[in-house]
């Protein structure tokens, strides 16, 4: 059994999962907004990747353009969502769920109208679209790039949240809103900017996942469920928790596909149940997370 390549692929899928989930862990875990449109945000990024980078080959320029577009559109979508949820302040998760689920249906349908109903692929930038020999077999270079990029994203987000004053501000806003307001800081601005950044992150993840997952109609729902499972298992609001949780899930799923093919589908949600029952705050919780 090619354990080495299974592990390598587990790490790659884990980091891909991480990038998909980190935006949601910030939004749901920290800002306490149950954003069921997260999958649709991700899908928008994937379609932007298809539009700018194309299906066959992509130059570095076009791929970078896709990423930039993802950041801009993501920030705008996040800002729009913040505006739309403003009247719902104080009404709790279910109303947020209602709004964001409705929006996710609308956004997904709009994407299909704009980009058509065919399934699409996204090309990796030239140079990253080949394969290298590792562990006795070819392995796509792009997945190695995903490992590298995912690690960088993890470090950057963690550092920004835990080691910068802006991050401290965000964590303070989550922990004690009134106190932060008392200092004279516009809490709404902080929350909005954080939301916009997290949304941009979700779209960027969509672009980056494009060469592996493509841009297809069912992707949004699939990503939403995966992201929810990942952040619950890792620890909502915790970047490290999401990272380690994603890696664990990626590796277990890859090994499970080979070792326990009959049961591999149950692994993810079974793990979710176990974590909620025995350690509801997640495997690697953070103090910054909202109290539940």
């Amino acid at each position, binding site marked *: 059994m090619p354990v080495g390549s299974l592990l390598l692929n587990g790490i790659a899928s884990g980091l891909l999962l991480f990038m998909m989930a980190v935006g949601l862990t910030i939004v749901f875990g920290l800002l306490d907004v149950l954003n069921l449109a997260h999958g649709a945000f991700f899908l928008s990024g994937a379609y932007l990747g298809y539009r700018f980078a194309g*299906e066959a080959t992509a130059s570095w320029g076009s791929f970078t353009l896709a990423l930039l577009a993802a950041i801009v559109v993501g920030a705008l979508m996040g800002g729009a969502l913040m505006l739309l949820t403003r009247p719902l302040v104080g009404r709790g998760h279910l109303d947020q769920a209602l709004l964001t689920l409705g929006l996710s249906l609308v956004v997904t349908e709009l994407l299909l109208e704009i980009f058509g109903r065919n*399934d*699409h692929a996204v090309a990796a930038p030239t140079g990253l679209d080949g394969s290298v020999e590792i562990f006795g*077999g*070819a392995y796509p270079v792009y997945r190695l790039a995903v490992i590298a990029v995912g690690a960088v994203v993890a470090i950057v987000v963690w550092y920004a949240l835990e080691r910068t004053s802006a991050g401290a501000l965000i964590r303070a806003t989550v922990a004690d809103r009134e106190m932060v307001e008392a200092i004279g800081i516009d809490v709404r601005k902080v929350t909005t900017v954080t939301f916009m950044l997290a949304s941009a992150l979700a779209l960027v993840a969509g672009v980056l996942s494009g060469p592996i997952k*493509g841009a297809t109609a069912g992707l949004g729902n699939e990503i939403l469920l995966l992201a929810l499972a990942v952040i619950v298992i890792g620890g909502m609001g915790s970047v490290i928790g999401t990272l380690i949780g994603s890696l664990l899930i990626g590796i277990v799923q890859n090994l499970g596909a080979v070792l326990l093919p009959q049961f591999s589908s149950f692994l993810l949600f079974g793990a979710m149940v176990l974590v909620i029952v025995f350690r509801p705050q997640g495997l690697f919780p953070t103090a910054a997370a909202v109290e539940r």
Partner: protein
Amino acid sequence: MAVRQSSKPLPILALGLALTLTACGGESLGGTSAAGAGDDTVKVGLIVAQSGVVSAVGRDMENGLKLYLKEHGDKLGGKKVELVTLDEGANAQTGSAAVTRAVQQEQVDVVVGVTIGPTAMAGRDIFDSTKTPAVMGNTGAVELGGKLKSDWVWRGSYDNRQPGNSLGQKLAEAKDGGKFYVIAADYSSGHETLDGFKATFPADRIIGEAFTPYGTTTDFSPYLQQIRASGATNVFAFYTGSEAIAFTKQFHQFGLAGKVKLYSAGFLNEGSALEAEGDTALGIMNSTRYNWDIDNPVNAAFVPSYQKAYGGLPTVYSATMYDVGAILDKAVSQVQGEVSRESINAALAKVGTVSGARGELSFDAGRTVQQDFYLTEVKKTPEGLRNVTVETLPKPKSDG
């Protein structure tokens, strides 16, 4: 002393009243239902997925049938067609609601289409008990021709086992053709397609088998790595839609494309999937019931007509529904007397051979279309990447 009202007569009276009213109740209590379409129109219910994950296939199916109707002045068998198009949605619940509406409300004379297997399975009981003929235009669920056979359900598309069955016969001939690994999505179509292959291909040459979780697998690397480790020189795979794209691309990315020959059941590199796969699909061979370049008079006219109407090459999904139009056309033209559900069904039983874009078609005893299968290879042509027909495969052997 309070008078106790006996409550016995009351329920009996109520029951009697209810039964009396039943006699003048509506059709849901046994009254006569509304008549179907008039004498010289035939009402056709087209049920396809217009929303949801398989809506691209549904759109192709709709295009195929509507092109046939347009080419024939919106007539089938000389009778004017009243077409009712309903959105099947993405699952059996919305699908069976669409079927119920077509059959019970719109009172169609015949139903055509149905994109996904579960809807066909749900619809089967409706068609059978309401005695409405239905010509399936996409799904190939084996049970519909076997345990769940119905006098009213016609598989105008195929049986899931046919592509593998044909291909298996051809590949079995090459005695030193190497060992095979078979892999498919873990749902009924995947299992049944592989069953078809295993029916005609020698078991001692199949050295491995895997089923990947259906609809949720986007990462095939653990399976591809197993294929690599098994030493197989050939693979027979069944995937459709986004899984087909992912499997094809990853087959190439994980280095199997040059070393292992990949065969599939006709949907791996079909239509827009080929565009998405690009060069990673080169060399893949498919066993398919339709290809744009197959050589027959109907197809020679169909392809340019389709291109003119919709701007791209027809896919197996559009061609199948085009042929369903042709089948109905011939059947309705042979209807004895008034056009009705019974007369259409009787005519389908005697429709004989129909010339379609797929070639010559006829129904067997199980009401499944008998057709040729073609071996295609993905090649680079001056117009771009295409599935190019290499040869006609042996006809699938049916097990009666």
